[in-house]
């Protein structure tokens, strides 16, 4: 029987294996150890949700707590990357990008180009995304479209423990700056994960489910919701193909386009805000490059164009769920 572990354990394992393999890999962030300078235990938190727990005991000075000054420590990670280290830097919630964005998109992302190819900045920024925790407007955003917009950045969004480990190892070994987005609602997801280290290449989508009537493209937590919807639709004889791009930059255009060539119908599901988001990005790709195959309007399933509300009843309405995906598929499955 293959071993099963949690999504968050898969991330921990990826970090552990890469730190063991390459002494240039370092980890930094707020409370990634926890307890620095205090009178109680060290490694008290291991990250705000425990994801980096245990690394301090093994790697000592190669994992560092930071003051709350994201510009300084993200920038430090970028500078260290330019000087030969391979920092994995934690930006606790992606919502906080606003206090350190410059170091990411004007510095890390542009060094190589501005410097005529003479620099590399192999930094990974791990960060939590997504709603569902009643964490309200400043701790629930997705925001990866903002990073996807920036040339020079790679953006990775795992949807299962298996992808989490393989993609994170790839991210650490990758020589470009990578934004690694972890949906907090997936941390407790269990799945089969090989014990040995492995990589999943960027820009290769995962065909989560094969089908012939409608293509559903979904990311992160939405992949599971799409599977639920597809299972329900299958009972009514509607066959959905589900594609998880896994990385939004680079994007595996071919797998998406081929699927739409077969099905002629596309639903894009995205938890990010709708305007200039990933749903729009993928819809535009298909409207440009697979137009001839399209037999129905493209459906975009996203939250409304509002901040994330606190109240549970509102937040549950905010998040695109299986029912909305199912309805969208039905709408275009019937279109003629």
């Amino acid at each position: 029987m293959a071993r099963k572990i949690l999504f968050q354990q898969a991330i921990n394992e990826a970090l552990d294996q890469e730190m063991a393999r390459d002494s240039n890999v370092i980890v930094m962030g707020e409370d990634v150890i926890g307890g620095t300078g205090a009178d109680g235990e060290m490694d008290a938190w291991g990250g705000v949700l425990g994801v980096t727990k245990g690394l301090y005991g093994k790697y000592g000075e190669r994992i560092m707590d930071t003051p709350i000054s994201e510009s300084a420590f993200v920038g430090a990670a970028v500078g260290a990357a330019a000087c030969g280290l391979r920092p994995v830097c934690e930006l606790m919630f992606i919502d906080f990008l606003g206090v350190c964005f410059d170091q990411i998109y004007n510095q890390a992302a542009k060094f190589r180009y501005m410097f005529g190819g003479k620099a590399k900045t192999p930094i990974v920024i791990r960060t939590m995304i997504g709603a569902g925790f009643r964490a309200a407007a400043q701790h629930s955003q997705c925001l990866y479209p903002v990073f996807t917009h920036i040339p020079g950045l790679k953006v990775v969004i795992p949807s299962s423990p298996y992808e989490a480990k393989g993609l994170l190892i790839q991210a650490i070994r990758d020589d470009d700056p990578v934004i690694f987005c972890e949906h907090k609602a997936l941390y407790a997801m269990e799945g089969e994960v090989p014990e040995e280290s492995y990589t999943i290449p960027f820009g290769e989508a995962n065909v989560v489910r094969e089908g012939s009537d409608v293509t559903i493209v979904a990311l992160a937590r939405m992949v599971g919701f799409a599977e639920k919807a597809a299972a329900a639709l299958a009972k009514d004889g509607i066959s959905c193909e589900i594609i998880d791009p896994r990385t939004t930059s680079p994007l595996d255009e071919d797998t998406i386009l081929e699927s739409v060539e077969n099905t002629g119908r596309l639903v894009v599901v995205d938890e990010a805000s709708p305007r200039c988001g990933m749903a729009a990005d993928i819809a535009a790709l298909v409207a440009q490059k697979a137009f001839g195959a399209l037999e129905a309007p493209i459906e975009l399933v996203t939250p409304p164009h509002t901040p994330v509300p606190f109240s549970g009843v509102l937040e549950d309405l905010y998040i695109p769920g299986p029912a909305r995906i199912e309805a969208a598929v039905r709408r275009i499955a019937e279109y003629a």
Partner: protein
Amino acid sequence: MALSREDLLEAYRRMKTIREFEERVHVEFAKGGIPGFVHLYAGEEASAAGVCMNLTDDDKIASTHRGHGHCIGKGVDVHGMMAEIFGKRTGTCRGKGGSMHIADLDTGMLGANGIVGGGPPLVCGAALAAKLKRTGGVAVAFFGDGASNQGTTFEAMNLATVWRLPAIFVAENNGYAEATAAKFSVSCEDISTRAAGFGMPGVTVDGHDFFAVYEAMREAVDRARNGGGPSLIEAKLDRFFGHFEGDNQNYRAPDEVKRIRAEKDCLQRFRARVASDIAAAELDAIDADVRKLIDDAVAQAIAAPDPLPEDLTTDVYIRY
């Protein structure tokens, strides 16, 4: 201006209300009734009260993720707050903000804030508005030791001096930013040391002592109202609970919280200090009042209705 007897009773009432509110939220959270991230202010009451007793409704404050105490100190309605924390439609923010985003512009409370260091720049603006509109008002930024290292906080202090704003920066140094000790993360002994680099007076006071905070704030407010520009006050104090509800606090020494509760309780200290002027029974009566108030707030919050589905898409633009 010396504190009158009424002022003292009012100060005590505010501190006690904060304490009771927080102890009760702690209990209700454990019961499962309260969603999301909740950061409790218990133990730090002397700071909110000492600062806000110097302010009027025209003055503004900006708060932090640990904002309940600042709200109550500034006069935000406790029923609305409790309902908000429960996510109800009757809440201060109609259930859309929650604990981390309670705001009430009518009482001059510009908002708790989920972003560490989010408040100090806003306070420069509030102070600027007061200055240009010549209201005589001041604006106060509360922030923690952790936030004291955030670039926004430094920038705001510089700007406040450059523009000579009636702004006051109150660093609440409770020794921790989450699980990280201020001893590690703050590069100088006292945060108030930093004031000199920003051309403003800085002072460190015992944040368990209402009177110490009150006096430091009084000076700063006088200066600000008289065109003397900003000040930095550091209050050294302690939190009774974890960083957020659910924190096991293993980064703290085993008996740390017990010792703090026993030796550094600002309410006990306040009682001792006013003992000769105010009968214990009078304060006990306030305690009883406050308990009733909080009981009532919790009961109402639990009974209150959830937001309506259509609330999801309102309030995002005034006109689109």
